[in-house]
């Protein structure tokens, strides 16, 4: 406990003995099994593991989108279980960014509005220079007035990433953000995310199946059957592939 508190200043989010159980009795599934993990501020963490190992569940629970069956989650110093629905919404709006696996954009809004959505909802102004920079780097400058249906899948994913970045949340969760992208677009997106971490101190937690994507991160956490089984620091594509072989995958 004391160690945790000592480093809490640099912890962006933390899961403490978190378990998530779906169903009951015969159909009970332990998607997370007593997981304790922390995500340090200003670091880029990748989460990997076989399909069904609980990666999305971990992400959702840590982001406050879902309740834990047991254990606690902290965003910064705030314990989410104690928050009322309204405060949880506010916290998500202000401190958390999210990029989903699919379906990220509101079809009636154009790209620009989608990027600015959290600020528009909150009725806040945005930082213009930062907006231009994000949009520029993601190569969306000439697509801002288009609706999602007029964008390619990769462009849609980049708009979603821009939305997560522009509001400069304390922590961004991304569920396979590069899943739908060709390798060049994927590289651009991942590179940008790493720059956000390195240059602007952004905290990012990303689920991925792709060892190349994982190699952009500072740290890789491996999940299997709802438990953390290993982690790697400063991974390379090869070290990740090596580690993954041990899963027999």
């Amino acid at each position, binding site marked *: 406990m004391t160690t945790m508190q000592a480093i809490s200043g640099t912890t962006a989010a933390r899961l403490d003995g978190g378990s998530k159980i779906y169903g009951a009795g015969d159909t009970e599934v332990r998607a997370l099994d007593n997981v304790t993990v922390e995500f340090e501020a200003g670091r880029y963490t990748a989460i990997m593991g076989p399909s069904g190992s609980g990666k999305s569940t971990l992400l*959702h629970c840590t982001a406050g989108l879902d309740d834990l069956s047991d254990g606690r989650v902290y965003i910064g110093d705030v314990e989410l279980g104690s928050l009322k629905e309204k405060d949880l919404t506010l916290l998500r709006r202000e401190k958390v960014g999210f990029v989903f696996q699919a379906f990220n954009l*509101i079809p009636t809004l154009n790209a620009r509005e989608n990027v600015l959505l959290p600020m528009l909802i909150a009725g806040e102004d945005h930082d213009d220079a930062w907006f231009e920079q994000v949009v520029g780097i993601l190569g969306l400058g000439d697509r801002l007035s288009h609706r999602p249906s007029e964008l390619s899948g990769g462009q849609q994913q980049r708009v979603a990433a821009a*939305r997560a970045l522009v509001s400069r949340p304390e922590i961004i969760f991304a569920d396979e953000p590069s899943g739908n992208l060709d390798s060049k677009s994927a590289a651009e997106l991942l590179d940008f995310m790493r720059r956000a971490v390195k240059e602007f101190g952004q905290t990012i937690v990303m689920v991925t199946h792709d060892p190349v994507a994982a190699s952009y991160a500072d740290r890789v956490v491996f999940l299997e059957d709802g438990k953390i089984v290993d982690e790697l620091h400063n991974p390379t594509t090869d070290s990740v592939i090596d580690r993954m072989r041990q899963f027999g995958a």
Partner: protein
Amino acid sequence: MIRTALKTVFAHKLRLALTALSVMMGVAFIAGTFIFTDTINDTFGQLFDDIYEGQDIIVQASTEFDVGFSGPPPIDEEVLDLVVAVPGVEVAEGGVQSSATIFDKDDEGIIPTGPPTLGASLTDDLRLAGNAGLREGRVPETGSEVAIDAATADSNDLVVGDVVKIETPVVTDTYEIVGIIRFGDSDNLAGATFAGFELETAQQVLDLEGQYSAITVIVEDGASVDVVRNSIAVALPEGVEAVSAADEAAEQSEALSESLGFLQNALLIFALVAVFVATFIIQNTFRIIVRQRQKELALMRAVGATGSQVVWMVVIEALVVGLVASILGLAFGFVIAGLLTAGMSAVGFDLPSTAATLAPRTIIVGMAVGVVVTIASAVLPAIRASRIPPVAALQDVDITLRMSDRRRTTIGVVLLVLGMGGILNGLFGDVVDFGPLDELTAIGVGAILVFLAVSMLSSLVVKPAARFLGWPMIKLDNMTGNLAVENSVRKPRRTATTASALMIGLALVTFFFVLGDSIKSSASASIEEGLRADYVVSIDGFSGGFSPALGDELREQPEIGAVTSLRFGFWDNDGSEDFVMGLDTDTVDETIFLGVVQGSTEALGEGGVFVQEDIFNDNDWVLGDTVPMGFVATGLQHVEIVGVFTEANVVQANYLVGMDFHEANFAGYGADLDFVLAVNAADGADADSARAVVDATASEYAGATVRDQVEYRESQENQVNQILVLFNGLLFLAVIIAVIGIVNTLALSIFERTREIGLLRAVGTSRWQIRRMITWEAMIVAIIGAVLGIVVGLFFGVSVTAALASQGIDVLSIPLGQIIGLVIFGAIAGLLAAILPARRASKLNILEAISYH
């Protein structure tokens, strides 16, 4: 296949419930109308059977014409001797019947609104009394005794031994109550008050001395009713007939059914409006459902289901919804029937309440309408669904086949032109011969076409309208407002159909507003112009009148100047019922402006008839021509036209006769009561004291109400207002169905947008903001519907009013306040419609929403 279809129905209970609700309400309205009118019919049929129970033959005056409610004129007393002498007659007794008003303990006349106040003789022989019997006391035996009905007694705390005041056409006097009468199982005769006298007294006070209204006969045991009836008929003088009591009961109840038929038709029109609106809703619902199930249906096609199997699946779902909804609708029909009864009594028709009648016809029609309407609404979307190419549908794009905008616009414009043409033609013109269609049908079909056309064309205005309406919402509520506007224009046709359902109801409301306001303004204007009298004494409610003695008393007062009596009378105008007003020709010029353009009122006093100018011209009559008028009492008379007048609004009749003529042709039973008195203060008399005199004199007469010019105008306006309330009350159901439609469409759209809403929530939109978004959207749809309805309603109202100009509705008046009220109503309706869907949307679990497929 069927099982799959049923599974989908029951998997979406809310969807099923909402869809079924709109069908249910339409069916309920139809069933309720039938139940309501059937119940009244049965009640009255039973009533007439009861009245004639145990009697065999009725002897009464034979009449050539049967108009009004007064029954045949009286016959001479001596006829009884002829009847008694006929072999086979066991008993025969004469009786009289007319009107008599009983006063309560506060000296107020007890006057039910609608049913009459009856005064009659009581029979000596109880077998002749029908089902009437004494609950307590005895039959009156002297001229100062009376028996009254149990309902009047009980509700006014009158008991045997009390002394009551009773007003008859001849005299107002006090009588001791000696008996309380019941009629079979009911305490009164269909709501009427009843005062029964001993025969001679009755003849005297009811102004029927030496006369009988009818003679009732019971034949000897074993004798044939028909044989005896024939023997009596032979013995009777001319103008008197003998009919079997059973026939008479049947005839009277049939006459009543006929007049109820009108009510039934009127109610059914409102019911059909409700069904029409429901059709929009159901069709829209099925369209959305099919769209949402596009992937699912396409998958079924991909694994081998044929197109017709897909159609069947949707149709079976519709069948289930239709059946469930119709059954519930039938049940709910009883509630509607109850509401109709309550509504009728609120506007002044007290109806007897008995067990509701559910005829097989009600069930068949209700079920048929519910099921057919639902299936018909589902077929088109189902066929479209079956044409979806299996592979294309798996991609999440809306590729539902539909008409192109241009084709839709063309069809819409054609329908609009046809519909407006039909209406204008039906109203004004003989430009096109509709062949088998009469004017009303042309107008009705025209209206339906206009509604369809507007609903088709309105998808074109949805975008600009929503942007316009949404502007303040966006100003007020930036992001949320913006999303609401975008959502409402996303599927313009869906929004248009939803709004159109509301449009129909509100168009008709607007129509009635405009027509009603024009009628009120026209009536006010004509009263202002046409009424010269300072005061009007009239009877409230729908029946009877008051004793001419009131007018005579007033004429004697020094404070009072000219007094004109107006008396109502029905006559047979070439097979249809018409009415005539008898008036005091020597004073009418001082009290009422008739606009006499030919002839003079003095001449009318000598005999003959005045005809309203338009009718005079339409018939190409000239002065000196005769009008064939059929009277109940005196048969067919060829009455000479002695004058022409223009202002029919104050006298409320297109034919005027002198009082002598009226008395000669409407002798007896009720027709000799004054309907209205137009009263002037004497020259130089103080207005306050003149009014006081009129008030004091009239207060002695049951039901006579005194009004000055302003009050009279207001009372006329109030009558129109009451009818407006009734009509709009009937339309309310259609409006509610439309609001349910908005709820339904919103709920389904939210279902469709589950992931989107989840995403909004995930990025920090609060529940409250989601609610606001849905509410704004509902308000946009509802206000568009209201505004469209107002536009269409104004067209209906203005054209119908223009067409009625020759009927005395010559002032067009558009009630701006009420119309603005309708827009506000629309906004509130949207607000209310949003409550449930908005709550549902805001409660969506974010994760489930996001992972929703």
